[in-house]
């Protein structure tokens, strides 16, 4: 059992509960122990750094202090937005003047001796990929999936230092390991509308409609994401798009961990797939059959 520090972020304790539940189940199966940072605070998401970069860095720095106190050097984050904030802050702390200012904010110098890893990045490591392959009991044969990375898992490249920022491959590889067919589509790294859905719903509906349309035209049965914000913008707004006459979509949006869990033989309901606002269980129930049955 290998232990990692774990920062769930607010979404995984709220609207993205199914991402947290499925991540736990998959990590348990892979003997990955996730130790949640004790008393963690919100990373500030978009709102902090967008209106005061010092606040954005300070909020992350407090979490890094907690990790250091608990001796957690490698921190795993399922949420792409939290991940980007942690990565960006760690990057900025390598600059002495910035580090001194942040130390002033949080009361002491903050260590930079951390590895910040997205859950997708962790599970894409060769050791875990091999394990995922060998534990697959219900391969995703016959499912055509559009891998959706969104913005923040790979960008900016000099900060994220993971995968390709324009045509990333890690999720493609993982989904193929599970037996799915991965479609080529233009939306891999196109923004879903990020933090605007509450304040400028009109803009986000158009952005999400475009992605859903692209995925449909590319022949995908579903979109697969590794980000709670992307999931929310694509999954929860399809009814609203229909009512507003923007687009008529019925496309399931899965977290990649839900699909790993399904491939491992877990019931979709146990993984939280029933929490989606766009119905996502029947596609799995209709198409998939366990090996040997």
């Amino acid at each position, binding site marked *: 059992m290998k232990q990692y520090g774990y920062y769930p972020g607010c979404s995984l304790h*709220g609207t993205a509960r199914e991402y947290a539940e499925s991540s736990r189940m998959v990590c348990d199966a892979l003997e990955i122990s996730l130790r949640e940072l004790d008393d963690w605070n919100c990373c500030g998401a978009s709102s902090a750094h967008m209106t005061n970069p010092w606040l954005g860095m300070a909020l992350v720095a407090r979490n890094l202090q907690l990790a250091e106190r608990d001796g957690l050097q490698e921190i795993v984050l399922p949420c792409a937005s939290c991940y980007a904030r942690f990565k960006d802050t760690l990057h900025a702390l390598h600059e002495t003047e910035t580090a001194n200012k942040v130390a002033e904010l949080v009361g002491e110098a903050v260590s930079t001796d951390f590895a910040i890893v997205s859950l997708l990045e962790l599970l894409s490591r060769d050791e875990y990929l091999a394990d995922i392959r060998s534990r697959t009991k219900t391969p995703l044969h016959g499912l055509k999936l559009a891998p959706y990375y969104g913005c923040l898992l790979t960008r900016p490249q000099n900060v994220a230092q993971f995968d390709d920022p324009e045509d990333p491959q890690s999720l493609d590889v993982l989904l193929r390991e599970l037996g799915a067919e991965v479609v080529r589509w233009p939306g891999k790294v196109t923004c879903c509308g990020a933090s605007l859905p509450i*304040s400028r719903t009109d803009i986000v509906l158009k952005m999400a409609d475009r992605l859903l349309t692209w995925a449909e035209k590319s022949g995908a049965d579903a979109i697969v994401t590794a980000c709670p914000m992307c999931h929310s913008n694509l999954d929860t707004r399809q009814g609203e798009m229909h009512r507003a006459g923007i687009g008529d979509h019925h496309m399931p949006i899965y977290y990649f961990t839900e699909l790993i869990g399904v491939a491992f033989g877990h019931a979709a309901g146990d993984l939280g797939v029933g929490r989606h606002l766009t119905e996502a269980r029947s596609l799995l129930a209709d198409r998939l059959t366990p090996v040997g049955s």
Partner: protein
Amino acid sequence: MNALEIIADGAHPLLTFVETTTGQRVNACYQCGKCAAGCPVAGAMDLMPQQVLRGLELGQEKLVLDSRTIWLCVGCQACATRCPNQVDLPRIMDAVRSWAVANGRQPAEREVRAFHRVFLKSIELTGRVYEVGLIGGYNVTSGHLFSGFDLALPMIGHGKIRMIPQRVRRRREVASLFRRSARMLAEDAKAEPSATESAAHGRGGDA
């Protein structure tokens, strides 16, 4: 010629703030427009991203600060990834927005500003974001009282929203980060913290 004269007088506090706090050189931009071409929100913007840079360079502070663009940029990093001169535009947008906030500027996108304010207030009070409080607080602050309700009900039905907020134990530590960061930004932006952020909170005027 005006442009050169404006630059020559050297009194561009916003440009100086942006360049010193971000480490970016605004005039590295040669206006190719690749940022605008790939910007997912460009269709809703009043200034194209490269025009924000040009405006900063020419000292057109009002044009930049009163634009919708600085509030609509979602920080997706597409432009930063593609810029041939490695201009980190999202970071510059953050700096301009922060200056606007620190100086109590009326935002062209009141709803976007209101959302950020309510979101941050939730963290300041509890250490985390609580979604029910967020939607309620946003509706009161923005004046859109029933916004999001059609989505909130199915979300509660599907178990996506918890009805009990989570709180950080040492939330005073978190609240102190808000005070100190606001002071630090105010010093950088040469604004009085008491006259801007905290006063704006009380008024709720520029939400």
